């Protein structure tokens, strides 16, 4: 596994491309793709302990492509991406998770999902108390707690 603590320019380029293949932009939902500049910056800024496995995943991706993914013709990238997804193991799973965790905290994405742009604390959320008469059949059926001798 790579021991590096930052991604090389080639790795960054491939990360952007594979992220965009995982989540492309959508006009219908008015969201950017995961290759968006702001999301990529968030990924790079927060990689931290995941840098090594992500670098290893990107190296694996380049090996599958036989060259940097960025240099591969766009119409042949899909096959490589599928192979990467099925053979990449823990390192590939880490890369995908890193992409998803940054994508799904982006303001534009959360807005599109109808979610508030904030941390859970301190506002919290309101929960309906619900209709506890739903328990009536359970109470009517009762049952018996198994007794110990």
């Amino acid at each position, binding site marked *: 596994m790579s021991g590096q603590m930052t991604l090389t320019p080639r790795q960054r380029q491939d990360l952007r491309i594979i992220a965009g*293949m*995982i*989540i*492309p932009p*959508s006009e*219908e*939902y008015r*969201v950017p793709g995961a290759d968006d500049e702001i999301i990529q910056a968030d990924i790079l800024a*927060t990689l*931290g*302990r*995941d840098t090594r496995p992500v670098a290893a995943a990107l190296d694996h991706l380049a090996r599958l492509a036989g060259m940097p993914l960025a240099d591969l013709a766009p119409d042949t990238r899909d096959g490589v*991406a599928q192979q990467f*997804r099925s053979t990449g193991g823990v390192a590939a*799973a880490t890369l*995908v*998770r890193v992409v*998803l*965790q*940054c*994508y*799904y*905290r982006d303001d534009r994405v*959360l807005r599109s*999902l109808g*979610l508030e*742009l*904030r*941390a*859970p*604390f*301190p*506002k*919290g*959320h*309101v*929960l*309906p*108390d*619900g*209709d*506890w008469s*739903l*328990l009536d*059949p*359970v*109470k009517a*059926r*009762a*049952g*018996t*707690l*198994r*007794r*110990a*001798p």
Partner: protein
Amino acid sequence: MKDPVDVLIIGAGASGAAVAWSLAETKMHILCLEQGGWMNPAEYPSTGRDWEAKFYGEWSSSPNVRGRPEDYPINDDNSPIKVVNYNAVGGSTVMYTAHWPRLHPSDFKVKTLDGVADDWPIDYDALTPFFEENDRMMGTSGLSGDPLSPLTHPPMPQQPMGLSGAIIGKAMNKLGWHWWPSDTTVATMDYEGRARCINLGHCTPACAQGAKSSTDITYWPHAVRAGVELRTHCRVREITTDENGMASGVVYYDKDGVEQFQPAHVVIIACNGVGTPRLLLNSASGRFPNGLANSSGLVGKNLMFHPYAQIYGYVKEPTDSNRAPPTCLWSKEWYDTDLSRGFVRGYGVQFVRGAGPVFEAVVSEQKGILPWGEDHHRVFRKLNGHRLGFSAICEDLPEEHNQVTLDPVLKDSHGIPAPKIDYTISENSRKMMEHALARGREFLETAGATDICVNSPIPWGGWHLLGTARMGTDPERSVVNEWGRSHDVKNLFIVDGSIFVTSGGVNPTSTIQALALYIANQMKQRLANLFD
């Protein structure tokens, strides 16, 4: 050399806090050594926009992933269930779901009732007053009167049903199956200085609101005010013994990494079902060559985890997602033995309300139900905020080959040998898990769920660490007696989940703490002849 203390407690988690608080009234000099530190709720994940991402790093439930200085590594490669825990003042109560069932009376008599494992040397009634005391101290919420659970008296009302609860209740009613609001340690009203739950939703990795009970905010403030000394960032390496075979104190590393010796008249271990056998095995000596308190050879044996069989799906209606505590309802429909099911004993069920967007995306991608490419957005919107889950907590029976030993190579940051786990899921448990998954599927289909997925077992589901220093009256078949004292070392006590004889089919923390209070009470009653 330091002055000896009357009582030295190792570990400030669920059981260590309870035993410290209970013994404080004796006015003895009580010292607790804890390898972690005090928590700072201002730094808890739910205070930041990256609250979900933290669960994959510094707030992972796995000590191997977290790798904080306070953690010790665990070799669990040879186990399908990985150990999860937390090391700090409050221990794993800082990081748990706050689900609060207790063992049933029948759980203490499994040999008599079902002809398997062993009966406990105590019964449910012996623990009843301590369950009640503990519920008051931890501050529980729930609805008294569940016909299929032991009678409890939670001081606070149950959590709101929410959107998920209503869907769950309707489906269970259609099937004619038992369900009930869970007892939890989530404060549903202001309670003893704790603010009420505001549904931060991300309960498991610590509660920034302080609504979820953890012993750093319940027992410990009382214990410290009563005079108990709590020394943090102190990792115990071994318990020492004197020429009479009595515990004489502990060797530990202080916050600066300096080796220290602390003499003590009584030593109480509260390090959980992995940490406790690790410490006893690391305390081997010429007199105790197989580890301390291990004349039975059972230290580290009979590890029980509770294999979780989890099944979940997606309904059309919105669920509570991350906008509520993750658990709110339980079922005891399949708790007791029914041999027609093809296995002995049973399981409790905790229903799951949902997940946050990052967790949903990551898990669904891994499960292969969330595609890459153009269709990603449509599918994600179908899944996110619509998850409903059914998790069966399957009773694990004790088997000696499931064990904690010392890893010959792996060590913690102080060079102390780390624990190694060898564990397999038994045939009985597998049948139980299959049964639970089938019932869970019926439930989900009745609720209208699709895209059904299974985690069986939940791989990172080794929350419940039980059985590795079991209690009993026979010194050849148990490590501690019926009131928690080592058979071999008369001033050594164990109060954590390692003393469980069997595991039941419920989350164990309520019972662990009731046991700790019971043992403390036994000690107080026997102070004049504690070592006889």
